[in-house]
């Protein structure tokens, strides 16, 4: 099947010799909900800038729905909608005009643009603010304005650069709901985040970018399966025996009173019973670390 986005050997070196992307290969299927995960400075915004013609690549190729970006620039631009990380509208322009003007740049006439803007502004709960200057909006409203603007020309692929930054929890939830609806209707959505929970709850496929390199591209399911193992720290009431019993799960001694267990098929209460049968009484249980977080850290430090 035709890929929504296919990037090969993409490299970007900034003027100050900062290599923000090195030979990145990435592909996103049509209809996917895709997360590009990476910590600050990983190169996410740079990659998006190149896809959206805001930056020039040093080398490499970008295909959007099979079209080479450099050869079919305008066609490619029409297929993409971008909600950028930083505010990039004229703060002295009224909200509705920002949308109608953006539509105009895509060749959409004023009356159709106004109709489309009305739908989007109502959906984003900005309709009451349509005549206000953009600078009078709150941070969350400004983000929603940029989301509406990204959708004004009805793109096939929506790209969101850190959509949740500065958006409060309630609005974040309703934005997520809206994005899921768009994806259900067939829109390919690519978002960047450094925020695992967001990727986990929204996305089907994921790539992890670290220091300008893709260190992992897989499905969310597979990634989560790798972390389904539960790692717990158990503290005993008494000093532990010198030799730990051999059980169906892995046990490691941490100190005289505590052990770390890794549970796959066994659940916690079975584990506690087994330990008790071996005269180890546990009084306190805690999780070793956030599972995804641990994996993420492992993957990204590997590359460094």
């Amino acid at each position: 099947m035709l890929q929504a986005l296919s990037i090969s050997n993409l490299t970007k070196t900034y003027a100050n010799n900062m290599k923000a992307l090195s030979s990145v290969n990435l592909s996103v299927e049509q209809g996917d909900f895709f997360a590009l995960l990476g910590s600050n400075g990983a190169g996410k915004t740079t990659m998006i800038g190149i896809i959206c013609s805001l930056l020039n690549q040093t080398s490499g190729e970008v295909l959007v729905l099979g079209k080479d970006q450099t050869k079919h620039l305008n066609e490619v631009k029409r297929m993409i909608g971008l909600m950028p990380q930083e505010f990039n509208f004229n703060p002295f322009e009224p909200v509705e005009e920002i949308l109608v003007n953006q539509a105009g740049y895509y060749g959409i006439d004023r009356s159709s643009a106004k109709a489309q803007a009305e739908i989007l502004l109502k959906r984003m709960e900005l309709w009451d603010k349509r005549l206000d200057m953009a600078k009078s909006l709150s941070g969350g409203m400004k983000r929603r304005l940029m989301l509406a603007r990204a959708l004004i020309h009805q793109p096939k692929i929506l790209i969101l650069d850190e959509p949740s930054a500065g958006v409060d929890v309630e609005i974040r939830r309703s934005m997520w709901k809206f994005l899921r609806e768009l994806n259900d209707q067939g829109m390919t959505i690519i978002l960047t985040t450094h925020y695992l929970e967001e990727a986990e709850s929204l996305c089907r496929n994921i790539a992890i970018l670290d220091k300008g390199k893709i260190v992992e591209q897989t499905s969310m399911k597979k990634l989560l399966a790798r972390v389904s193992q539960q790692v717990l720290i158990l503290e005993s009431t008494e000093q532990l025996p010198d030799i730990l019993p051999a059980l169906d799960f892995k046990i490691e001694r941490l100190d005289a009173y505590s052990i770390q267990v890794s549970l796959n098929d066994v659940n916690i209460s079975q584990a506690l019973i087994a330990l008790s049968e071996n005269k180890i009484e546990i009084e306190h249980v805690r999780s070793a670390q956030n599972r995804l977080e641990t994996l993420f850290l492992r993957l990204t430090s590997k590359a460094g």
Partner: protein
Amino acid sequence: MWIAYKTIVVKEILRFTRIWVQTIFPPIITTSLYLLIFGGLMGERIGDMQGVDYLHFIIPGIILMTVIQNSYANTVSSFFLAKFNNSIEELLISPVSYWVILLGYISGGIVRGFVVGLGVFIAVSFFVELQIYNIWIVLMTFLLTAILFSLAGFINAVFAKSFDDISIVPTFILMPMTYLGGMFYSVEILPEFWQTLSKFNPIYYMVDSFRMGFLGSSTTDLLVSMLVLTTMIMVLAIVAFYLLKKGVNIKT
């Protein structure tokens, strides 16, 4: 294409009309006062120039100066601000060609120059009886001047990295050039050397043909003036297009 162009022009016009207290009103008031006090009161002592009384002599030059300043100011500040608040990205991600972007901004500058120039003309005509020798020469010269300085303002904005950079050129280059371009005097009264030097100043040709349109007398051939201006416009247009296409200070 046409819709995108129209969108940019309307946006540009709305931008400066929204802040008309800063963009339209002051130049009209100051220029008109300037004309009446300087030309009206002092002019009587200066006497005739190029065969007309001094007040009537300086009116075309001063209207043109307003056009120059306002066309320039419009594109330089609008395009610089678009870079500054990153709203230029709205255009860069869209399928708008560089020619359309350039034409849109230039048209905005022309309209601003026209509005302010016409404003001064109307304001002055309340006090002075103005005659126009040939309206087509007036309009043609206005148009070429406005295009030329809108382009210059655009190029200035491309290079500008701070707010200071958008006022340096107007203050240190544009103003002296305007004053030395025969705005207040006929170059005929200058010594030979300065007369020759004036011919290298494009503003001399604009002022001369603009004055021709109003008064019917000039110091150089109208056709030469038009040719000089058209050539300069073509050169600046190519430079501006190239800068935009290259993404100088816009795309890294």
